[in-house]
């Protein structure tokens, strides 16, 4: 992907961001006989690559994994760095390997006299932990909608697995925007909506009521404005579902909602003036008896394996409720109408309640035109993440209010924290005189960026202390 060209002394330098070169899934235990190597390859992107080249690339991965097992049998290769690209290896299930090859960012500098431009590869720009996390996320997303590879094999053998992989990754890979991956991908966290106790209780009792009335519902999740309030799912399942909702489903449906009441873009409220609720998955128009609909199926983990569920996402204004029902049940139009009738009005009411509370709170705490501190916070225990640096983060857009190099420094500090289990603090001063402070305490990580060029270490420390006192109730107590 080519981004803006830069003018430098009359000559244009072209900056290329990291991009996806290859993505493949293989199992070395299939096709071990001579001449049958192709059987190992379960998915390969881009598909128009010559067969022998595919086999060769997969063979290289096998060799590398084997080689590293010589030195550490239990923890084989994670990545391969070459000048031009970076390969990531991930074994999500026994003998099933996912490999992603990313082309390193590069700068193309034009040469005089018609000579071909010189290319300078920027290997250091790619942080392993970030893209390693992206590969894992690819698998998690696949697993959410298809279950594990093992399960697919049981259900329909290799052929079914190949089919499912093709169907999923063909679309999913197109949504990968590698140039905007950063520390938040490492965390894979969830943004929680801050609520007062009363409103939280209202939401909880709403969920209880609905689950009682519609006994088919097994799990519920409640979101407001792309932020999570309540979830009945396991953490790992919720985090990938959250990612799907906030980066794929909600953005797809947000445009019409933002349009004005009388705009032709406004979805058919279908004559229902009692509430603003509608289905984001399933029937788009309840009024039409002929219209066919289906709900996406997801797989979540249980004590002894997995269960398949229908995913119903129902939205009213800025509030969204997810209801999950066992996939073995057939969901009829009647059921949807019942749900619509029950949930629609209540959710609409709840949505406006929350909105009101939110506005009141903001009036009390003061408007946040430009957040005072630029920071990123993550709690490993509940996966809560908060960033005042990212203004909008969807699959395709990542607007950060700081220079990408600073984000990479955060990535470096996060890597350093991961080397040990103990609590640590790392403060650095970048060449641009920005200060970056990283604190790790008790399963929580905090990164603060300060634009205070003339400050010294002690002043920086005081600033961060102030932030911790107001925003984090002193949980980060060090020095």
């Amino acid at each position, binding site marked *: 992907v080519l981004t803006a060209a830069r003018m430098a002394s009359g000559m244009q330098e072209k900056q290329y961001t990291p991009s996806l070169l290859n993505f493949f899934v293989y199992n070395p235990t299939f096709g071990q006989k001579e001449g049958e190597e192709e059987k190992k390859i379960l998915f390969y992107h881009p598909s128009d690559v010559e067969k022998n080249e595919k086999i*060769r690339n997969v063979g*290289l991965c096998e*060799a*590398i994994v*084997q*080689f*590293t097992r*010589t*030195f*550490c049998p239990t*923890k*084989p*290769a*994670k*990545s*391969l*760095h*070459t*000048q*031009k690209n970076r390969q990531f290896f991930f074994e999500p299930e026994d003998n099933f390997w996912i490999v992603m090859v990313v082309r390193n960012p590069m700068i193309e500098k034009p040469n005089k006299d018609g000579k071909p431009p010189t290319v300078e590869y*920027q290997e*250091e*720009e790619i942080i*392993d932990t970030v893209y390693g996390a992206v590969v894992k996320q690819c698998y998690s997303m696949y697993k959410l909608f298809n279950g594990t590879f093992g399960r697919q094999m049981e259900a329909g053998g290799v052929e079914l697995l190949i089919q499912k992989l093709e169907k999923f990754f063909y679309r999913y890979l197109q949504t990968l925007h590698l140039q905007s991956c950063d520390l938040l991908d490492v965390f894979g966290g969830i943004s929680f909506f801050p609520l007062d106790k009363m409103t939280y209780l209202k939401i909880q009792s709403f969920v209880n009521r609905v689950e009682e009335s519609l006994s088919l519902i097994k799990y519920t999740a409640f979101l407001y404005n792309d932020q999570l309030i309540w979830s009945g799912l396991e953490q790992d399942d919720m985090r990938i579902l959250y990612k799907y909702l906030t980066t794929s489903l909600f953005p797809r449906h947000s445009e019409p909602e933002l349009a004005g009441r009388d705009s032709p873009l406004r979805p058919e409220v279908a004559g229902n003036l009692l509430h603003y609720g509608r289905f984001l998955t399933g029937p788009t128009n309840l009024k039409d008896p002929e219209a066919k609909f289906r709900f996406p199926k997801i797989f979540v983990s249980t004590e002894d394996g997995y269960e398949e569920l229908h995913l119903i996402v129902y939205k009213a204004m800025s509030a969204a409720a997810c209801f999950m029902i066992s996939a073995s049940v057939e969901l009829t139009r009647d059921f949807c109408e019942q749900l619509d009738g029950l949930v629609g009005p209540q959710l609409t009411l709840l949505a406006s309640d929350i909105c009101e509370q939110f506005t009141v709170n903001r009036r009390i705490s003061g408007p946040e035109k430009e957040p005072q501190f630029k920071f990123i916070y993550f709690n490993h225990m509940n996966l809560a993440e908060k960033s005042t640096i990212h203004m909008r983060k969807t699959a395709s857009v990542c607007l950060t209010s700081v220079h990408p*190099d600073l984000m*990479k*420094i955060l990535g*470096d500090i996060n890597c*350093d924290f991961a*080397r*040990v289990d*103990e*609590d*640590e*603090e*790392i*403060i*650095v*001063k*970048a*060449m641009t*005189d920005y200060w970056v402070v990283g604190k790790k305490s008790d399963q929580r990580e905090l990164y603060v960026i300060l634009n205070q060029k003339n400050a*010294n*270490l*002690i002043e920086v*420390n005081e600033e961060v202390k102030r932030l911790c006192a107001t925003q984090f109730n002193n949980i980060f107590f*060090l*020095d």
Partner: protein
Amino acid sequence: MERDMRGRGNPWTPSGLIGQFSLSNNVSSPTLDKETEDAATDNDRSDSGEFVVTMLAKAKLEEQGIGVKGRSSPLLEVGTQETPAFISHRDEDVTAESWRQHRKHVFVLSEAGKPIYSRYGSEEALSSTMGVMMALVSFVQSGDNIIRSEHIVVFLQKGPLVLVCVSSSRQTEQQLRGELLYVYYQIISMLTQASISRIFEHKKNYDLRRLLAGSEKILDGLLNLLDSDPSFLLAAVHCLPLACSLRDSLSQILQKAITPNLVFSILIARNQLLTIVQEKTVIEDARLEPADVHLLLNLIGASSAFQAGEIWTPICLPLFNPDCYFYAYISYLDPPECTVCLLLLSTDKEAFYAVAECKRKIEEAMMAQNSLSLIAKVQSYSVSQVGVSDLRHFMYKPFDVTGCFITYSKMEAPYSSEEEKMRLLDLYRYMHNRIHSTSRPLKLIYHVAERETLLAWVTSKFELYTCFSPLVTKACAITAITKLLRWIKKEEDRMNSLKLVLFPYLS
């Protein structure tokens, strides 16, 4: 010319060995191996660098009792002089868990996959692993590659040699690549780059161990130094902190003892540099790179062979000129303690006697000034001298135009054990890597960890790494640094007085 026959300058003893070969070129042996014969004939036609290679090759045959009388080059003899206490890593069982657990493996092989060196385990036992490595290198092709897992595997190809490092030390790929480069350069320092290229051009699957047999100890020593010596990390040379006057007087002594074709005079004490004197007109502005000095220090320190009298041996300085040899006169000035070593480098392989005469002059002058006992009194710095209670250790490198020198304090408690020393160095290494990142360099890192607090700081004038107790407050750390820098400034004349002294050519 009558010479003292007791092992000093005697051409028929090990110390005068190269002198012997340079006097008689007609050495021949009917039982020369065909391969070496080929290499020999090729080399005979070319210049002196290769002549020496040929001789070394023949010297190897002598060891086996074939051909020429006499013994092999002392440079390569180092490997064979192993004390009974020396545990040979060569015989390690490569399938054992203990082999896998080594912190850092280093392998050297030729492009054809022929093993040349392995730090742990014998090359034969590892030949299949090396085969895989070679396959990986050719498969992945372009440039240098690394594999990251629990260990990091770095591949480096230099000419016909492939070097591989498998490390769990958590160093970065750049640092490990730098270490592999050092290994490569140490090999060059013994054989020269031109010879290696020519040998492999002529015969792709030549077994380079024939020429390097006996030198494993040198490479082992280098790898140990890379692990434990901070001066490699900062690409600078560690010098003993001498008073200006003492250093000047030593430099003058060296300056006066010259002979045609003598280009470098180097004085070393306890493996640290005292002074370097360089001939101006031949070399002009070119300087000895710190890496070359490191390689020299390792060559000398890696064996006790040099402690026997005087040695005259070819040495290549790879960063200075990778394709030709200097001839090095090496002699310890204070037997039997052997802590002070004189190194005189000449471009003339016949100059042994003239250079030995220089040494005699130097020895006399130093005796007159009682230099040896003055040197013996000099101590390395200890943090206690700085007078800051929380400070545990520091490393300081000024960005000085005239040289790359580093000062550091001794590693004292709690960093007394080898493991703790390594751990502290690893911490410095990680900070060094972050601060000097090519894409996002930093000015300062302050790292509070469980066992210590570290501060690294780079300005336009210097680079400083410090280690404090973990409970130090930021205010105390800042005060400590200020005090340290003030103390360094006071000691500056001792630390920075080592400037390269250039002497004029006198006919």
